[in-house]
Structures are given as C-alpha cells and as structure tokens.
C-alpha cells in the first residue's frame, strides 16, 4: 500500500442533451418534463396547455368541457388487478375526474402488432367495455392500425375522453392557496409493484394487485358535498412525489407532508425494500391527491372513508407560501428533507 496517496479529481464529460429519445423520457420524471417543456409546449404554445393539468378545460358556448388523452403501453398486458384495456379506460376517466368533470364519452385508438392472438384482443376489448360500464361512460368512436411483427408490444391503446364540468370550482394547480390541506385517497405503490412482480418473475407471499380503479364517482361525491376543492391529481407514473412536485412548481407554493401519514401496504413496502425503490415514486392507477380548503378536511375525509376507494384516505400535509415550488417531508424519525422528482425511471440497485 503506497503511503500518502493523493486523490485526484477525475470525472467524465456531462451528457447534457441526449441525441436520441431514451425510455427515461417517458417515465414521468425530470427528463420527461424537459421533453414536454422544451419540445412540446414550445411548439404547441397556448394558454390552456400551460395550466399543466391532467385535462384541458374548454368553454364551448355555455358549457365547460374537459378533454384529455392518454396512451397505454404496458408489459405484461394482463396483470393482477387489471389489464391494459381496463387501465386505458380508467386512466382517461381519472384524468377527466381530476378537473371535476363527469366523463361523457371516450374514443379508442388501437395499434395492434401483427401476430397478436385474437383471444387476447377480445379479452382486452371485453375488459374495456366492463370498465366503461363501471365508470358510466360510453366508448363512442375508434380507430385501428396494425403494424409489422416486432414493431409493437402486442397492443398499444390510445384513449381520448371528454367530460362535462357542472360545478363552479376552478380545479387546477393555479388554484392552490397557502393553508390548503392535502388528502391522499389511500395506500400507494401497488400498481407499479404488481407490474414489476409479473414482469420480473418476483414472487412474494401474497399476490400484490394493481389499484387500477375509476375515481369519478368518489370525486363527484366530494363535489356534490360542496367541499371546496382547489386541485386534484391522480398518481400515475412518477408516483406521489412527482405529482406533489409538479403542483408545488406550478402553484409556486411550498408543500410539506408527513411520512408517517402516507399509507403503504406491508407487502409493497417489502418489495420496495428488496428492489431499492422508494414507494413515493412508484406508479399508481387508482389513487389521487386532493387539495382542499383547510377547514374542509374533516368533512372531506368523512366522504372518503365512506367510499370503497377512499377508506384509507389520510391528510398527508399542508401548503404554505414559505418557499416557492418546494416539497418537503417530515421523515418517520422527525427530521425534514426535500422531496424531488426523479430524473428518469427508478433503477434497481446493485446491492
């Protein structure tokens, strides 16, 4: 061992701009945000788009119409708790619900890969109709394209939805104000772990099922009970953390949450510990956060707790105007830390 070794600084050149699209550009983190801000919003420049909400709200004659679109690419196509078909309906219904809209109609675009088993397609289509019935929405128009074998993952689905806004609230990130309380509708991380378990052949003592579900009924109950809702966001890719960061940044307010109040099921926690994942960033398909006027918390929680999809709902934190665009969390041992978006996907750790 040589004595008096000097440590030399030595590091690589930064990769600033990727010349190609990476998978991480679609994972709901900072890379995807850069793509949206730097490429899409730059060109598709309009007021509604800049509100950065799950659905656009359009004033057409005397009606307020919400519109949203989403594409679904998931492997495996079938997983515990759902499949790509039901996900494609619930995802779009939920995006509409997040502006308090009652879903009216959905369009479906199928991109099918040559060779997809017809049985699988029929199963998926049936599942879509079942989901649409459950959410109370009609699938009114559609499109089909088939691509060469090897150029698709069996099936890709795009759904676009429109909904009617009957309330007078302005539910969007800009409406969040100092003092608002944040309610989380239930435990987090189940969808992401359910998919991961099937995809990677991980086996746990219990089967972890996706939380995929339509949220419109629960949202309608909140609105009908005159809860003063300022913003809602369903937690999909990027998980709870990314949703909070997005809203803090758009509203230019600080969000402070308490780790002890965030429900994570024991089996999901176990899986996350093994994989080195943080449940705060794991995907969900049937959970949302709602920002309400601070003195409406108890009333809102009562409504949550009386609905099957909100039984484990909790107030997880509050909004303040201390620091613009910052999310902080009181950890389980009582210390404070910053919560930020991930740059891309969570990658399993080495050891």
């Amino acid at each position, binding site marked *: 061992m*040589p004595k008096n070794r000097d440590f030399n*600084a030595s590091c690589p050149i930064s990769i600033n701009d990727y010349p190609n699209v990476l998978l991480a550009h679609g994972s709901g983190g900072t890379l995807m945000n850069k793509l949206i801000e730097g490429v899409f919003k730059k060109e598709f420049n309009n007021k509604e788009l800049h509100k950065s909400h799950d659905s656009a709200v359009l004033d057409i004659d005397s009606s307020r119409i919400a519109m949203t679109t989403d594409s679904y690419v998931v492997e495996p196509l079938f997983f515990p708790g759902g499949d790509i078909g039901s996900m494609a309906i619930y995802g779009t219904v939920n995006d509409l619900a997040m502006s308090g809209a009652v879903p009216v109609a959905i369009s479906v675009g199928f991109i099918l890969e040559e060779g997809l088993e017809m049985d699988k397609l029929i199963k998926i289509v049936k599942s879509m109709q079942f989901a649409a019935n459950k959410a109370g929405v009609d699938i009114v128009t559609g499109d089909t394209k088939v691509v060469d074998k090897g150029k698709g993952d069996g099936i890709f689905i795009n759904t676009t939805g429109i909904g009617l806004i009957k309330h007078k609230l302005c539910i969007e990130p800009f409406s969040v104000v100092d003092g608002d309380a944040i309610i989380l509708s239930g435990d987090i991380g189940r969808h992401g772990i359910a998919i991961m378990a099937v995809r990677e052949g991980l086996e746990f003592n219990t089967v972890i099922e996706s939380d995929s579900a339509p949220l419109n009924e629960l949202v309608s109950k909140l609105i009908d009970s005159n809860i003063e809702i300022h913003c809602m966001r369903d937690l999909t890719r990027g998980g709870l953390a990314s949703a909070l960061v997005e809203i803090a940044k758009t509203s230019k307010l600080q969000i402070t949450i308490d780790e002890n109040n965030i429900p994570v099921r024991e089996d999901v926690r176990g899986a996350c510990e093994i994989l080195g994942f943080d449940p705060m960033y794991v995907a969900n398909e049937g959970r949302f956060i709602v920002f309400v006027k601070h003195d409406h918390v108890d009333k809102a929680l009562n409504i949550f707790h009386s609905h099957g999809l909100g039984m484990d709902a909790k107030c997880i934190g509050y909004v303040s105007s201390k620091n613009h665009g*910052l999310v902080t969390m009181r950890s389980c041992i009582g210390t*404070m830390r910053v919560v*930020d978006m991930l740059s891309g996907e969570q990658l*399993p750790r080495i050891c």
Partner: protein
Amino acid sequence: MRFIDEYRDAEVAHKIAGSIRRATTRPWKIMEICGGQTHSIIKFGLDELLPKNVTLIHGPGCPVCVTPLEAIEQAVIIASKKDVIFCSFGDMLRVPGKNKDLLSVKAEGGDVRIVYSPMDALELAKKQPDRKVVFFAVGFETTAPANAMAVYQADKQGVSNFSVLVSHVLVPPAMEAVLSSKQNQVQGFLAAGHVCTIMGYKQYELIAEKYKVPIVVTGFEPVDILRGIQLCVEQLERGTFLVQNEYSRVVTRSGNLNAQKIVDKVFCVVPRKWRGIGEIPYSGLGLQKSYERFDAEKIFKLENINVQEPTECIAGMVLQGIKNPHECSEFDRQCKPEHPLGAPMVSSEGACNAYFRYRKNPFGAKI
C-alpha cells in the same frame, strides 16, 4: 414491518442521538464507507441529530461511483455490437462514459438489458445460444459471490456464449488508501454491513490496529447508523481502536464461508483503478486463469483501452470526504442526475445524488 420498523423508531433514534451528544467532548470525523449508509443518513437527516462537532464523511463505497471510466467505455463498445446482449444492474446504465452512457447505446439499437441477478443473464445465454451474452460484473464483495456463481455455473454447464466484464472492487484496500492519504481527516469508520455479511470483519481488525482507528460494522437503518456512530464516538473519546459489530443480527466475525469459497475459486485479487481515486494495489477482483475464457475484456480484445479522464468535477474530493457535494460549483447547475458530470450523481448510493434528492433547496432557505 419486522426488521425495518424497529430500526426506524423515532423515539429510539432520538434517545441514541442524546447519548451521542452527551458522550461527545471533542470534534470527531467519522467516515461511513458504504453509499447505502450515506443514502440513509441524508434521506433520514441523521446528521441533523448529531452534535455539531461530530462530522460524517461520505466514503467511496458506491460501486457505480468507483467503476473506472475504462470499464464503462469497454461496456459501451461491447454493448454496441450487433451479436451481443449486454446485461447489467440498472444503476450502471446512466453512468456517462467518454461520449455516451449505456442508455444511449440502448436508444441507438444496442441490446442492453437490466437484470436483477447474474444468473438471469446466464439463463438468457442458454436460451439464446446464437447471441453473446455479457454480464457487467461490478460491485464490492457483496455482489462478488453471485457473479462468481454465474461464471462457475456457466463453466459447469458448458455455456460458451456467456461472459463477464469484471470490475469488482474490495473495501479494505480502499480504507487503507483513505487512511494513508496526505489529506486524510478520518478518525473512525462505520464499516459496510452488507460487505461484512459476506466477508466477516476479521480483515478490519488488522486495519484498526495498524492505523489506530475504531471501526464499527454498521447496518443501514437510522437506528443502526446512530448506534454505529455512538459506538465509534465512545471509542474515540476513550482512545480505543477496536472493531465492534453493531450489525450482529446479520454479520459474524468470519462471514459467509460458502460465499467466500466460491469467490476464491473464480476470482483472484488484482490491482484496480477506482474512478476519482486512481489505481489501488490489491483492491479488485479479476477472473482466475482457469476461468479466463469467460472474460469479456479478453474475448472482445479490450485490455488496452485507456481513457483520459477530464477534471471537471470534484468526485475525488467528495469520495474522500474533503468536500461536500454542496460545495461543488457545478452541483445542481451543470451536474444533475439527468446529466451527471460525475458518477456520484448517478447512483442512488452516490453522495451527490443523495444530496440532490434530499437536500437540494433551490432557494437556499431553511426548509
């Protein structure tokens, strides 16, 4: 959850922090070796619970951070080949090489796959005999046994299209390198619990004795780390330099002998270059001569790759604990996880990444 909740108990954590405060009469600098420990310290804000005169220095125990640029370059070259399936642990994919990372190779059409175990890569090789399957065997003593087992099984089963690109590193030589540096400030160590699970802690007794430093084998949960710090501070105050085992629910003095046996069979100790630090003798593992035909470096004739590392970032200083990630002028400016200047910003175990995720405050205000 058992084995987790009791080690994240706020009351217990604060009680231990109180004991540390009472025990501390002088300034002490303690290095936690493992990046997993660094991550826990920053995530749970454990340093905030310590008295001002106990400083934690974040050590070089992040396998992603210390894998040399040459190895990344070799990986990029191999992964770009048409007949290759390149398998790696996820963390390695974002580490920048000379011009690109493995994620970019994948985006350009290279067959790069994330696997959870080297055995998955071996299975893949058996299923696809017409492709060359290469596994990126990196990490400390913790990952070495599974990687050794994959090579051993490939040999036993006659899987000739499987190979490994090896860049394994060993903890004790790195500790000695830190301790013998001119700029060394470290007075005590928290040794890495996972590494000791495999290797035991006999080796550390020699280091503690030679350099007169207390070493505490420590786990990864908040209560583990605080207990490790408490034991270390108490020794420093007493002036003793023993090896203590805080992580006794997992670690024994001799370690996992079966794991060590397979590592010794397949690997031998070699000099290894550490990114940001330089070459340290006897600090790595390479394949034994009898397993040479599984060595991707030889198969693809990449032994003489030499990459000049530029000096934009201060990773070397961070890995030695001379500077904090915050003190780097490029932190959160040029250097972010989505475009890292240095490997410590890439890995979830890297100190810069942990500071970025949990301590970044764009307004510099108190949170």
